[in-house]
């Protein structure tokens, strides 16, 4: 049998059901792997004691024959943007120093209720603002994959800690949040599967807000099937979130029929950008061939507004963030840096509490919403956003899903692009358009570039049609047969 840390969620669930091993043994195996991986800086908070307690409870349920479902006893990690009851929750920001919520986010709560075992809270870009997990107050996370020149690479972001944790086999699955690509891009950089479901599919209640109209919780797993299993547990209508979709969940695992015959897969020509490395071009063509071989029909489509997506995103997201982050004022929780007056206390607290990237976005957003600029920036951006969504809808009248690269590059070195925010923002060029439209998207590892770094393919679907997205992803996964392991694992660490 494979090592416990090499299993998939589906395998582990079978193993637990067959009593091949206990949840405690499984959990212990993952906790034991933490020491060797500490250099990756995956976790902001490790929760081994809690995990062991939860694993024991899971075993006890199982011994009585009343397990809570497939996820019962499965070790997972939560992005440290999900509020977890009694466990430090930081959003990777100094400003949330010491903040232990008295409540559990709906998504992490759903997993908890289903018996999943939380092993830790993963690192991220501060307040999920970034594409490299380098803006964290707790330092950058390293990608378990190393380049041929042996540089430390970023895991992508903002959910880089979760992506790295799954890739480095420190847990079986992890939650993330995706605002403009924060799940799909790190999944691509770390060679695992990452899915952002349709906006409204997973509740945002208890998730620290970055940009409310875009934020959406999702999954990191090693296989598409695991994604289906985990999403099934996390998602669903939540009356506590007014933007949560009041729909019954389909059976995501049942959607993985492997049969995409007759499906129409759109290839958007605007995603073929000038600066894209040849390896990605090649891989994309390979992906097209895979789905064609599996019986899908390839349709060339055009999404001419794609080029406006990044500018629109970088107005709307900071605008919402500038307002969402107003509550971090030193009055009720987290960091307070005293001052002579209330205003001075605000200035001191927020000045010290927020990092540069967060401050930059608060300033951009405040500017975009200011009197005299609102119409030219925020209002215009909302109008274009609507057009982008309509454009997707039109294309989806003729196709069932879109196939694109996930990111315009493989993982880059820590420190790179740090002094050039625009270059950093370009990371999300393929993920942002569908985020603006609220559509479901997944990144599936599909191959390696010239430096032996993983690259992902993205499948985008219609709103609330995660089933088709998963079905196509399953085919890309099996056709691509991606088996490469990150250098961190290949290097003999266990």
């Amino acid at each position, binding site marked *: 049998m494979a090592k416990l840390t090499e299993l998939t969620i589906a395998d582990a669930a079978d193993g637990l059901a067959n009593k091949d091993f206990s949840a405690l043994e499984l959990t212990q195996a993952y906790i034991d792997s933490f020491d060797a991986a500490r250099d990756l800086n995956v976790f902001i908070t490790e929760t081994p004691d809690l995990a062991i307690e939860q694993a024991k409870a899971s075993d006890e349920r199982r011994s009585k024959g009343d397990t809570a479902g497939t996820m019962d006893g499965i070790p997972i990690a939560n992005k440290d943007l*999900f*509020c977890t009851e009694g466990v430090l*929750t930081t*959003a990777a920001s100094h400003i*949330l120093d010491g*903040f232990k*919520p*008295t*409540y559990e*986010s709906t998504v992490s709560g759903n997993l908890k209720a289903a018996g999943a075992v939380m092993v830790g809270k993963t690192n991220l870009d501060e307040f999920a603002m970034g594409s490299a997990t380098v803006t964290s107050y707790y330092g950058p996370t390293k990608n378990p994959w190393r380049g041929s020149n042996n540089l430390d690479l970023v895991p992508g972001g903002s959910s880089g800690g979760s992506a790295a944790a799954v890739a480095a086999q420190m847990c079986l699955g992890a939650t993330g949040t995706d605002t403009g690509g924060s799940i799909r891009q790190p999944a691509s950089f770390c060679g695992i599967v990452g899915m952002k479901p349709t906006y409204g599919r997973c509740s*945002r*209640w*208890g*998730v*620290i*807000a970055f*940009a*409310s*109209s875009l934020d959406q919780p999702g999954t990191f797993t090693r296989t598409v099937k695991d994604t289906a299993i985990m999403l099934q547990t996390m998602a669903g209508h939540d*009356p*506590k*979130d*007014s*933007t949560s979709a009041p729909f019954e969940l389909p059976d995501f695992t049942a959607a993985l029929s492997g049969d995409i015959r007759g499906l129409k897969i759109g290839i958007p020509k605007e995603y073929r950008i000038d600066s894209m490395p040849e390896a990605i071009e090649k891989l994309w063509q390979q992906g097209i061939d895979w789905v064609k071989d599996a019986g899908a029909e390839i349709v060339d489509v055009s999404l001419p507004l794609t080029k406006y997506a990044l500018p629109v995103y970088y107005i709307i997201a900071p*605008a*919402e963030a*500038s*307002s969402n*982050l*107003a*509550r971090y*004022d030193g*009055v*009720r*929780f987290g960091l307070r840096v005293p001052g002579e007056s*209330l*205003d001075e206390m*605000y200035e001191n607290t927020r000045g010290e509490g927020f990092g540069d990237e967060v401050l930059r976005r608060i300033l951009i957003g*405040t500017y975009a*919403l*200011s*009197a005299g600029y*609102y119409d030219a920036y*925020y209002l215009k951006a909302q109008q274009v956003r609507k057009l982008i969504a309509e454009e997707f809808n039109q294309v989806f009248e003729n196709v069932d899903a879109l196939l694109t690269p996930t990111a315009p590059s493989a993982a880059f070195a820590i420190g790179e692009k740090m002094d050039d925010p625009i270059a950093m923002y370009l990371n999300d060029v393929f993920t942002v358009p569908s985020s603006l439209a609220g559509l479901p998207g997944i990144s599936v590892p599909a191959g390696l570039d010239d430096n032996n770094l993983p690259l992902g393919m993205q499948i985008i679907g219609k709103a609330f049609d995660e089933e088709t997205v998963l079905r196509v992803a399953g085919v890309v996964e099996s056709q691509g047969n991606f088996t490469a392991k990150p250098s961190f694992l290949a290097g003999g660490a266990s």
Partner: protein
Amino acid sequence: MSYLVKGETGDWEVIIGLEVHAQVISNSKLFSGASTTFGSEPNSNVSLVDSAMPGMLPVINKKCIEQAVRTGLGLKAQINRRSVFDRKNYFYADLPQGYQISQFKHPIVGEGTVILDLPDGETREVGIERLHLEQDAGKSLHDQDPKRTFIDLNRSGVALMEIVSKPDMRSPEDAGAYVRKLRSIVRYLGTCDGNMDEGSMRADVNVSVRPVGSDELRTRTETKNVNSVRFMMQTIEYEARRQVEAYESGGEVVQETRLFDSVKCETRSMRSKEFAHDYRYFPDPDLLPIEFSQEFVDEIKASLPELPDDKKERFMNDFGLSAYDAGVLVVEKETAGYFEALAKGRDAKIAANWVITNLFAVLNAAGVSISKSPVSSENLGKLLDLIADNTISGRTAKDVFEEMAETVGDPVKIVEEKGLTQITDTGEIEGIIDQIIAENPKQVEQFKGGNEKIAGWFVGQAMKASGGKANPQAVNEILKKKLS
């Protein structure tokens, strides 16, 4: 007669608009399940949403939507079946979210009308610009500690209706009548309790002035959070005078926010640096637009009570009351109900008089509302019946009424126990009068000498001698006969 400010250069007209903040009657807050009970321990009615903990999201309280629509219908206003919540961004310690959820571009209620009942019985229309829903902020307590400010979030997130008038008022009296009428309407509707001393209703007062005859709109000032009708009227008087003086001394009026100082009876500028906000309004992405059907509106409409204007009209038509009396009686639903019960099967004008003159005096003196009146409408009715069937005189009735107010007694019993039944036996009255005539020959002389006014003195003496029980009409007739 219009209200004008006399300046050195001539008369000035005052232009007034009010933004009234009315707390919605609902068990829980606008976006959370926390209680809205007034007077609870500080920070005891606070949910995770009200304290803006990370990751918390607002969920609209449907009851508040209903109440806003209900109020809109009561103001004969346009109901907008689609409206949007916006964020109004500013930092303050008692505003935990760092923004107030309000409605900016698309309010739930549009234009409507309020009819003012003026003291002379005339009416005057004031336009409603809009009504929107918004969250209240918490309270900063600066007097609990020498160095620190304490925060009470009990009010944080409580639903308010901001009712914005058009600049249609021209005098402090107009403004007073407007707020009183608005209060009356929302109390009838059950959408706001109108308790100004608990802060359930307060107003921002917008004032500008212009020379009589001009139709320009000059710069206005906004005096914030004035919490009584009297203070609103004082604010207007002070501001109008101040602005006229500013213009006449060659100065300008600055568009600014001011505060009313109720001790000094004056308004003061709030420092502009602190309050020159750019609120950066934008639609709240945590909330979907509010949308509802015409049926929802119709259902609420069907459940509306008879409102003061309609009731007043009916009282005038059915009971023959004057506009003034009808207007006074309908201000409070309970008063109108009391009056209607009293007037049933009785002379309505007499009933109205008793309520407005005698009952109100008793209630005011005791400082109680009509629902706690010591004199029930049933007992007052019995008293009126005793007058109507000549059992007691009107004068005796006043004494009985006082007794009723004091002892919460039944008038029939009081009259019986105290033997106050009117003397209608002419023989007995004749005896009393004969005696008075016999004892006062001088006055008899005066009367016979042509001083007819002295007749009144004789009536008074006769009444006094009978202990007020003699029927005044009989006294008059017998006196006339005896003296002639």
